[in-house]
């Protein structure tokens, strides 16, 4: 295999556009996204609903068509790969969806679902399929006897274990986790998370981990990317992003996390309004209508991702990233609460 510093997955200026049906508009679900994902590391992807996280996840797996840019998996450009070539590669990159009930066919037993990938890629034959399915079910904390059951017979957490077993049965290197725990209750969330962490360690997996829950991202990820209206507004090592957020949007997200031990804060920030529609993004910085620190330049020029002065791997798309905004008066008076 390639050496450890060679990224397993790269996205270069990746864009996914949709035509708005009925109109002439274009919806930019994902816009110029660039990142590298190193082997055996986890990149967390955070952002509000509708910001394009799921589309990005599906685009890197080529489950939705890529409009522009490239997706490179282990040195191979997937963006224009088609048909059987792509299907053969799918063994190496798998996905776990948010809604485990929706992602499992109601008419298929768990055994058939977990064994399907083995059949598709002819990884096992005959009774060896059964053995592998049993092994995978047991690895994710279910019983081999469960393979004759149907998804409706299981709890949410158990279903998500099935979905994980199905993804891992084919022996992937990359696992995209698209909000894998947000449909589960809190106790199941913790179990599934620790399962995912254990599997990552045991199989040397690489995760692209999508969540809107920052606490989960903080506990699971090595690097974090923050998405807003289809663009990355900040990306960097987890510690840098969480301790020294450069983008006002990241700060707002972090402030919104309920803290069990409230510490004195610099200033409590809050955005106003809803995010703009991705089919008509505002000019300039996409975040400026909601940004407490927006100045004139933000309304006209869109900031590019730039390395911050503190850490080169930590990049922020904000005109005022290098200013110390902690003491600044928010220019948007309604954006602050006492």
């Amino acid at each position: 295999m390639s050496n450890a510093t060679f990224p397993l997955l790269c996205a270069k200026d990746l864009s996914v556009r949709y035509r708005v049906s009925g109109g002439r508009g274009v919806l930019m679900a994902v816009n110029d996204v660039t990142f590298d994902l190193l082997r055996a590391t986890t990149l967390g992807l955070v952002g509000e609903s509708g910001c394009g996280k799921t589309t990005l996840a599906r685009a890197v797996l080529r489950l939705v068509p890529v409009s522009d840019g490239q997706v490179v998996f282990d040195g191979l450009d997937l963006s224009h790969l088609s048909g059987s070539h792509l299907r053969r590669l799918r063994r190496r990159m798998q996905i776990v969806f948010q809604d485990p009930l929706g992602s499992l066919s109601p008419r298929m037993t768990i055994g058939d679902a977990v064994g399907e990938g083995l059949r598709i890629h002819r990884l096992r034959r005959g009774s060896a399929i059964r053995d592998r399915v049993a092994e995978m079910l047991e690895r994710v904390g279910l019983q081999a006897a469960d393979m004759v059951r149907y998804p409706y017979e299981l709890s949410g957490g158990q279903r998500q274990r099935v979905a994980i077993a199905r993804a891992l049965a084919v022996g992937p290197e990359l696992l995209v986790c698209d909000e894998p725990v947000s449909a589960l209750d809190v106790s199941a969330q913790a179990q599934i998370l620790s399962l995912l962490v254990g599997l990552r360690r045991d199989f040397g997996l690489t995760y692209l981990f999508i969540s809107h829950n920052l606490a989960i991202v903080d506990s699971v990820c090595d690097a974090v990317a923050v998405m807003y209206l289809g663009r990355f507004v900040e990306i960097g090592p987890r510690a840098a992003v969480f301790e020294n957020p450069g983008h006002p949007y990241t700060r707002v997200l972090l402030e919104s996390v309920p803290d069990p031990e409230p510490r004195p804060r610099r200033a409590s920030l809050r955005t106003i309004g809803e995010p703009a529609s991705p089919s008509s993004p505002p000019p300039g910085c996409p975040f400026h209508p909601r940004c407490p620190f927006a100045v004139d330049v933000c309304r006209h020029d869109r900031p590019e991702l730039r390395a911050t002065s503190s850490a080169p791997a930590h990049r922020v798309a904000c005109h005022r990233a290098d200013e110390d905004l902690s003491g600044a008066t928010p220019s948007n008076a309604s954006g602050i609460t006492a």
Partner: protein
Amino acid sequence: MLQARAPRLWRRFRRRRLGMLSLAGLVLLAAVAVLRPVLASRLPIVCRYEGRLYFPGLVGVLRSVPFASAVVEESRPFSLPSFDVEKAVADSSFAVRALIPYDPLDYSSEVRARPSRQHWLGTDDLGRDVAARLVHGTAVSLKVGLGAMALAGLVGIVLGAWAGYAGGIVDVVVSRLIELVMCFPVFFLILAVMVWVEEPGVTHVVFVIGLTAWTPIARLMRAEMLRLRGSEFAVAARALGAGPVRVLVRHLLPNAMAPVAVTITFGVGHAILIEAGLSWLGFGVPPPAPSWGVMLRSAYDQIQSAPFLVYPPCVAIFVTVLMVNWLGEAVRDAADPRGESENLVPG
């Protein structure tokens, strides 16, 4: 795991009383259709006539098997038109007669006789035994109903699934075709085809009904595909590396079949009724062959003078259609894995 599925379906199906009842009834009907030469025939099943043993009825059953008539010879002299069967039976040292000892085409002077011990369901306007005609009509109606809907189901499922899954130009073409066939006065189309065919028979009726009755099935299947195509489990299957055929056949079709199966079973009744209409106009099963449709139509003309003639074909059609529908529903419920919890009653 694949082998375990059929018994599982059967086990769950068996618990549905209406479904089992309907299955038993339809098996019985099929048996009636197959065994019609021994159930209703003026020929005896077996008799010893002039010192020899004859099996005219049993030979009739054997000869009704497709292609067997080339191998199995007719039972002479019983099969000869001039042969007096009644006299021969009377002369025989022993004879086992059919349950209904009349042929469906035998005329008699007993016209519109009320139901009696001789004629259980009476006789029609030409003095033919209604019970015998009903038994022989079973074969025609079952062939038409099941055959036409098997064909319509096949065409409808394939075209509908293809259109809904593939989308684009395929969808446009198939959708327009569906609309074209639906807008067409189908009954007249069938009439035109049947006139064009030189010697119309049951097979023609099956094809003509089958090739026009698929549109509701195709439409439903297409809609189900549109609903399921974007579902997360379809995306999951693609993510797993499944090709389009596998996604369609293994993931989408099993989830789309339930409503489609019910539509098909309803179509069976419809096909039987279309056959009745065609036969009435003289374009269906060629007269004087008995079919429930032919019987119903002739009974309808005489409803004032002989109302009792209406009931046998009516009840036969009604019961058959009902059983097919119940069977369809039971199969649908048994195939739905969630159906199991139905049996849980709170308390």
